[in-house]
């Protein structure tokens, strides 16, 4: 017979599963990695030559945004995973395993964030190196920001997966959400140049906050403490919402 594993080891095993399944889908990783490198070394290099603003280096600006948008994209996958697990009936198996629903919810959101961070960690080192700030403080600080952002995005993705019941609709909504989260932000272009109508939304975007905070760490670009508050608020709202929706689905919807 077996011993009951501790909550921590359960959390780790849940995260490990998310890591394993991601590693086993190399085309997702390869396509997103290729996108990152092409955008960085082709798009950003080219645009940098076209932009002529004194004291502004678009390549450096974009490099940070590229990592932030990549981690956003990876963190969104967790919702699709959950949706698929529900469709395939895998959720029944997971719910029969010896851990509580709240631990399961926490583990899945955390798993989405951890695997996104692990995937983007080398990219962040490369960007810090290219931007001339390859220091432990800059890199570790950036990791913290990226992890916090990924946790919030995982929560948002789980929320969408729990609210939307139709698979096709879910694919469209998740693609739109990903697009909006990255494009309506200052990840890949400065806030000042964003059309006025979406500027307020971009200003409070968590992706903007994460990008600005990492730019502070690796480029020394000044930013306000409010970015931290915005990011924390986003995480609190969506990690909380995602958890509540998933928990309600497990306790409510399935347990009629």
């Amino acid at each position, binding site marked *: *017979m*077996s011993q009951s*594993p501790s909550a921590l080891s359960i959390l780790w095993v849940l995260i490990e599963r998310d890591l394993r*399944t991601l590693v086993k889908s190399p085309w997702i990783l390869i396509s997103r990695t290729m996108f990152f490198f092409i955008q960085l070394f082709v798009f950003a290099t080219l645009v940098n030559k076209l932009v002529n603003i004194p004291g502004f280096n678009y390549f450096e600006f974009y490099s940070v945004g590229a990592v932030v948008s990549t981690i956003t994209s990876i963190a969104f996958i967790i919702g699709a995973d959950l949706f698929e697990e529900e469709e395939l*009936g*895998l959720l029944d198996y997971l719910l*029969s395993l*010896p*851990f509580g629903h709240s631990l399961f919810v926490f583990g899945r959101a955390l798993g989405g964030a951890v695997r996104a961070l692990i995937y983007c960690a080398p990219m962040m080192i490369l960007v810090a190196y290219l931007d001339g700030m390859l220091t432990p403080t800059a890199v570790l600080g950036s990791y913290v920001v990226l992890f916090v952002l990924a946790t919030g995005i995982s929560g948002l993705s789980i929320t969408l997966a729990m609210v939307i019941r139709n698979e096709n609709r879910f694919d469209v909504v998740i693609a739109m959400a990903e697009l909006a989260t990255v494009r309506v932000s200052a990840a890949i272009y400065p806030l000042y140049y964003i059309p006025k109508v979406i500027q307020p939304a971009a200003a409070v975007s968590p992706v903007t906050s994460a990008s600005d905070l990492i730019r502070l760490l690796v480029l020394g670009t000044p930013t306000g403490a409010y970015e931290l508050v915005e990011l924390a608020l986003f995480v609190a709202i969506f990690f909380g919402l995602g958890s509540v929706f998933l928990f309600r689905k497990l306790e409510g919807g399935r347990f*009629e």
Partner: protein
Amino acid sequence: MIEFRDVWKSFKNVYAVRGVTCTVQDKEIFGLLGPNGAGKTTLIMTMATVYRATKGDVLVEGHNVNTEPERVKELIGIAFQDAKYDRILTAREILQWHGKVTGIDKSLREKRIDDTLAKFGLTTEARKRTWTLSGGTKKKIENAKIFVQRPKVAVFDEPTAYLDVPSRLMVWEMIDELRDEGSTVVLATNMMDEADRMSDRVGIMSKGEMVQVGPPDKLKGTLRGRDVIELKLKEPMPELLGEVTKVEEVHDARFEGDVLKLELSNGRELLPHMINVVTAKGGQIQSANLKEPSLEDVFLHYTGTKLT
């Protein structure tokens, strides 16, 4: 011990389980028999805390699934009807993960995985991603999770579906071993031979209700008096009917073509005597056949429907 106390489960006002009350004893193999849609899987899922009963209680080793679900889940392992695991992973990875999450020590886990894969002849295929494997192999891996976990309460939902005959026998042997080691086994099946061979007791489910519970032989015994002897004669001899019905245990006798059909009690004991009666009157018997009530007859008797 598992106790179902007036368990009801509905999905959007449609009741899949209706007032099931029964007990599964420690270290027994309890066969849950019924056609698809009878409520077997829903009852199992309710026991495993995946579904919450609409009404009633399920107690596993004294722990209520509604109030102590985590304690119950520590005791239970389920091999589902369809393979439920990450098909992107290999069989070994699936079993390793299942072993880890159910708290099996690494060395023991690896030994059990090696043993189970070897028994199923899957040592080589265990390196392939499971989505590439056949339906039977996927089913073996689903069962293998429980043989690696070896839980206190092992639940198998149609464990031999999609399997060939040697694999079925292997699974039956492994389930027997599991019970011999001290596990209580709940075996949901719609295969009569499986329920008959494997179960210490059988629960017959129909339309969400548990219509009868008991050892297979005892259930068959409830249909005593329903044995049938068929004697194929060279030619019909209606005059024999009067002779054979003189035997007290014979309830009915008739000819169907050249076959003399006798419905009686204790057919096994009376077969030689009935042959003597017929041959003494000049009947030339070409073949004799004894039909005793099967579990299928029991099922038909209690549910009014055939299983297959």
